[in-house]
């Protein structure tokens, strides 16, 4: 069995829509940062936010009280179905599964709900907020908006969860009762998340993200969603989804990535979409890439788009699919040019490119990869 991408949707800080975001990346553009603050602490963080204009097109009763994470997912999911030419009706609603990749979840409402408990006591906690704090709330809204009545799964993990979700989708599609699987990853930003990642020494105060730098200065968080419709036929094939692995310590991440890359490198790949984001991930990926695929071109979109954690894996797959389709790759921004790694510093044509690996090293012990090809 092989799976293929039949449709995609993309909501990012650089805009909404596959072609427009891709074109901006090819032009070497990057998202601009916004400062966010918190009422009881002085510290300010810079993040990449989704422009409000990208979300205006959607309105649904389920989204009235929903957090941004659900709205991003709804827009990306609807775009993906539309680009696949897929319309859900009662006859086929059971034949599509939904796998929703998530990492931090509905952190805005979670914080607000807990703030009510801490601030004014349990009696003041809003029953309207609590359901939105549950990890599968965005998936539930999306299933309701689309009318999915079959399998709906929310998969939780770190930045690698988007690729793990593809593996799960592949497992689900082994069931001949399914024709499609919509895989969505979504993330929203809050000050609290930034503070948590800073305390974990993974965040930097302001852009840029400097991938593969010898000093790991940290990442900038971003928000948005990515969605992919998987089918048995499509424009790009998922040749192999690796189930991934985990590492006990950060220093062991490189070995885990090497194992994944070794399983994916044959037949020869032309380029790799890496998850380098200015943290310890970069060193781990650098070692693994130099060792296993030294001749492949390496791209990371995180300097331009930020680290969107739960959405990041889907964004990487979209980047790979677009590069395979358009036969060119966008420039890697803010990187060290003296590295022993083939990085595109400019918009680079790849006329013969047929295969790509998407590699993801999460910030909390998970790693995954997959190989894609175009006919």
């Amino acid at each position, binding site marked *: 069995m092989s799976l293929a991408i039949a449709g995609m949707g993309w909501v990012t800080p650089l805009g909404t829509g596959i072609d427009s975001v891709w074109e901006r990346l090819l032009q070497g553009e990057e998202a601009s940062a916004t400062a966010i603050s918190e009422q009881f602490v002085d510290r300010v963080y810079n993040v990449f936010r989704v422009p409000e204009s990208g979300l205006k097109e959607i309105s649904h009763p389920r989204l009235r009280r929903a957090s941004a994470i659900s709205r991003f997912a709804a827009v990306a999911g609807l775009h993906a179905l539309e680009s696949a030419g897929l319309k859900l009706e009662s006859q086929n609603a059971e034949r599509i599964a939904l796998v929703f990749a998530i990492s931090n979840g509905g952190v805005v409402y*979670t914080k607000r709900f807990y703030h009510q408990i801490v601030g004014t006591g349990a009696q003041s906690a809003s029953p309207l907020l609590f359901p939105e704090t549950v990890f599968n709330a965005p998936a539930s809204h999306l299933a309701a908006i689309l009318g999915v009545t079959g399998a709906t799964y929310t998969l939780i993990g770190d930045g690698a969860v988007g690729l793990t979700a593809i593996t799960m989708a592949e497992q689900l599609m082994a069931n001949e009762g399914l024709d499609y699987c919509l895989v969505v990853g979504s993330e929203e930003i809050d000050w609290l998340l930034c503070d*948590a990642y800073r305390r974990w020494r993974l965040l930097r105060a302001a852009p840029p993200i400097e991938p593969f730098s010898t000093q790991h200065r940290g990442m900038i968080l971003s928000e948005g969603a990515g969605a992919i419709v998987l089918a048995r036929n499509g424009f790009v094939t998922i040749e192999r989804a690796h189930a991934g692995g985990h590492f006990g310590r950060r220093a062991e991440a490189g070995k885990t990535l090497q194992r994944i890359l070794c399983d994916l490198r044959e037949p020869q790949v032309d380029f790799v979409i890496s998850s380098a984001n200015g943290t310890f991930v970069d060193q781990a990926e650098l070692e693994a890439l130099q060792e296993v695929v030294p001749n492949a071109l390496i791209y990371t979109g995180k300097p331009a788009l930020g680290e969107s954690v739960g959405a990041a894996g889907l964004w990487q797959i979209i980047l790979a699919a677009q590069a395979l389709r358009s036969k060119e790759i966008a420039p890697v921004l803010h990187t060290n040019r003296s590295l022993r790694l083939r990085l595109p510093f400019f918009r680079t044509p790849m006329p013969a490119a047929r295969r790509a690996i998407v590699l993801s090293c999460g910030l909390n012990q998970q790693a995954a990869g997959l190989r894609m090809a175009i006919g």
Partner: protein
Amino acid sequence: MAQTDRRESTNNPARVAVTAAGVISPLGFGLAETLDSLRSARDCVTPVMRFSVTQCRCKTAGQVSDSRLLAGNSQIPRSGRLHRASHMMIQALQELVTRQPGFEPELTVIGTTSGGMSYGERYYRSLNGAGDLRKAPTWIANYPAQKPVIDAQTAFGISAPCHVIANACASGTNAIGHAFECVRSGRYQRVLAGGYDALAEMVFVGFDSLQASTPDKCRPFDRQRSGMVLGEGAAVLALENLELARKRAAPVLAEIIGYGISTDNFHITQPEPSGIGARQAMERALTSAHVSAADVDYINAHGTATLFNDATEGKAISALFNGVPVSSTKSMMGHSLGAAGAIEAIVCLLALQHQFLPANINFTVPDENVDLDIIANEPRSAAVSIALSNSFGFGGTNASLIMRKFEA
């Protein structure tokens, strides 16, 4: 690696054995204590002391003893930093590994709803001026939902990739069901599956704010039911290709034969009133198991004791089944959310192994609108060949699992 081989065997599906299990819940540490509590119809719900519940309607929960939990894992490096959920997962997996040391999973699928939520709460309270933030990096590192799974795997040298499913209260059943399908399809031979959740203030207050939890006893399917009580715990099952399990002479505790999932899209917190979502999940599980409703000997109901759940689940069960004995063991241990489906699968496993029907305690007044054979207050001895377990969650996600007594 199993995924290198993309064979499908949907026409000749593999039989799926449960070859070992481990559990920790308010009912006890391990299968033996759990069985004893079930046989005694023990009420294991106690007053909550972990955080203040003075402003909540509900003041009780099914809880796992901390002193016993932490003492059991003192040999784990840096165990003092781990979240309680990690400790629960480690102890549940320890029981499984002790019983079945030869089990090496290719994949792990675990359900949860709240991960390390109480560490997030500590972090937020400290940020808000009520505490010391020096431990914040530890809280943050142990907050993610996959951490307890990785901690448990690491403790026993298991390196399988893991899927962590967060489908609200159906998570545990979804995890086992998905693992079952992975083995049945022939893509995997051995999958570790289960669920965990640890009590957290935010979740407790959340259910209280919805008035879904009760100040009274948990009385599933009773006319006087007034809501759920929360619980906590962890449970894991070793799922294995039956043929291969027998080849290596592994004990087969039971078979998993069917799984059904549905999404009803009615409301974020309430089930579809006609019971269609629950009914579809059970129908799909029966179809998947190739058995009829009449073949089912016992249903372990989702049975949260909320007005809505029990009314719709009761309606769905009575529409599909004719007089099958039903109980909700949440009456004894509370609702452990993401762990519930996994713990209740173990309850079914014990019922199949020991040929009895676990009780639905605190049952005093039958509900005339719920036409079910409730196993009221005392367990029953019975011939049990096939058991069905239901789990339904927020967001309209519904799951049913069917297990069969193994006949060699």
